[in-house]
């Protein structure tokens, strides 16, 4: 049942949509190419991007945490024996 499989993967991986946020934030250069407000003498351009390193790492942790929760609670057995479209199984 390929449709069902697709749905379960979407269910499991929806947290990954959060990764769109750092991409949008970092590629929108004009939003942070400014000096004000400063933080401890450091212009906005610099401390904002440094802060995003921490925010990005936090997002990865959140996604990891939610995903491992989803897999553990609902699809524990299915995950390991997953006969999905992953090439590892095709090959």
């Amino acid at each position, binding site marked *: 049942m390929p449709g069902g499989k697709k749905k379960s993967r979407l269910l499991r991986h929806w947290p990954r949509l959060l990764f769109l946020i750092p991409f949008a934030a*970092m590629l929108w250069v004009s939003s942070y190419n400014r000096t004000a407000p400063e933080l401890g*003498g450091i212009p906005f351009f610099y401390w904002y991007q440094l802060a995003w390193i*921490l925010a990005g790492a936090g997002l990865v942790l959140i996604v990891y945490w939610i995903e491992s929760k989803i897999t553990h609670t609902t699809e524990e057995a299915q995950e390991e024996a997953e006969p999905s479209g992953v090439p590892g199984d095709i090959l």
Partner: protein
Amino acid sequence: MSLDLTATSVFVALFLFVTWLGFVAAHWRKADLNVLHEWGLGGRRFGTVVTWFLLGGDLYTAYTFIAVPALVFGKGAMGFFAVPYTILIYPILYIVFPRLWRVAHARGHVTAADFVRDRFGSRLLALAFALTGIVATMPYIALQIVGMEVVIGALGFPAGGFVGHLPLIISFVILAAFTYTSGLRAPALIAVVKDTLIFITVFAALVIIPAKLGGYGAIFSSVPEEKLLLPPPSGDSFGSYSAYATLALGSAFALFLYPHAMTGILSSSSGNVIRRNAAFLAAYSFILGLIALLGYMAIAAGVDKEPAFAAGFAQYGPNFAVPALFLASFPSWFVGIAFAAIAIGALVPAAIMSIACANLFTRNLYKEFYRPDCSDADEARMAKIVSLVVKIGAVVFILAIPQSYAIQLQLLGGIWIIQLLPPILLGLYTIRFNAMALFAGWVAGTAVGTAMAATQGFTSSVFPLQALGVTIPGYAALYSVLVNFLVAFALAPIFDRIGRTAGSPAR
């Protein structure tokens, strides 16, 4: 500059310590090192912590620690693109590479070329992968030597001539010897020392130097205004904004395609190790961001105007900014530690890169085209020998050829390596895809990317793309990989049809 004895003694002592560590590493997690995946992938048993040190030591290289602040020192805000770049690599690492790890683990792949060879059944595509990987990595190894050369010169060794190059040659002989005996275990263990030293150095720098210079406010106010921010775009051009964004994005996509990054990923013990590291590796990004700011501290300290450092700047250019800043700010013994951190920081990636090149050569050129029936022991022996050849090649390269060539080749390397993205992604996320179309895409992408860099005289990888009456300066790697994707998608149905009418079974 005369030789700084205290600093040199500390430097040499630390260097001897990691040399000993490199040889001892052969006994760590003991296994038969005459099998390639034991020698060249550490037996695929590295857990979260070792992988963190290994990938951190592998990706945040000595050259990075010298060149990124040098770029900020010389060009200002544009040099800071390394920060958004390292932010964007981790979502990519999280999503794509545990999947690749799983396939590689199940099928015994040691290199990315192994993966495409197996996935698409195409020797041609695997050959393209192996050659691209080796050619893109060689100048990268050479640049690690540049990083070492700068700190050795800053210690006060006489520059130039055979005597001047001797410390460098000795370090590389040592590096070659322990890589030969211990394989990937050596850089994995040494990376722990390297990162400890780097962390100590950076924290000391961030406490001591701003205090000396009167705080961050004073540091930033001494930076010329035109360097502090990106110049806003004007007229019909996206100017520096699109350049900054595409450099970050393209570099992020290219990074994990490098053979040495692939080696680090495949040596981990599970997909979850990679996922966890996608979060924890950010610690290195943060350190890198802070190191970038050292460039401004060097401006504020005015090291380039000090007569004592004039010779260093004349010899090494902006790359001398950070060593000069350390010399001006730290006591001698701590300069020894800081410089050792940078030099050892060159050894770790140089070792992993040479192992990765050796894996590629042995698996995908030697075994594939020359000795298909070679035994496991032959394969491992060959890889060890190639790792020596690669390092000798890199040293000769840097001593015999002007340094600017290495920098230009490394710039081209980024453009070439990103062309491996379509086959990896399509190999992981589609059931099947035409191998010849992927090969054609690789040819087109490589050609277009190289041509774009050629229009800039190989001095910049930012290409001013003209489209719909506006100019969009952007990273040539990103533009050319789009061409690669387009060609692959356009030709796939055509090649599929030719394949079917020719009567061969659809692959």
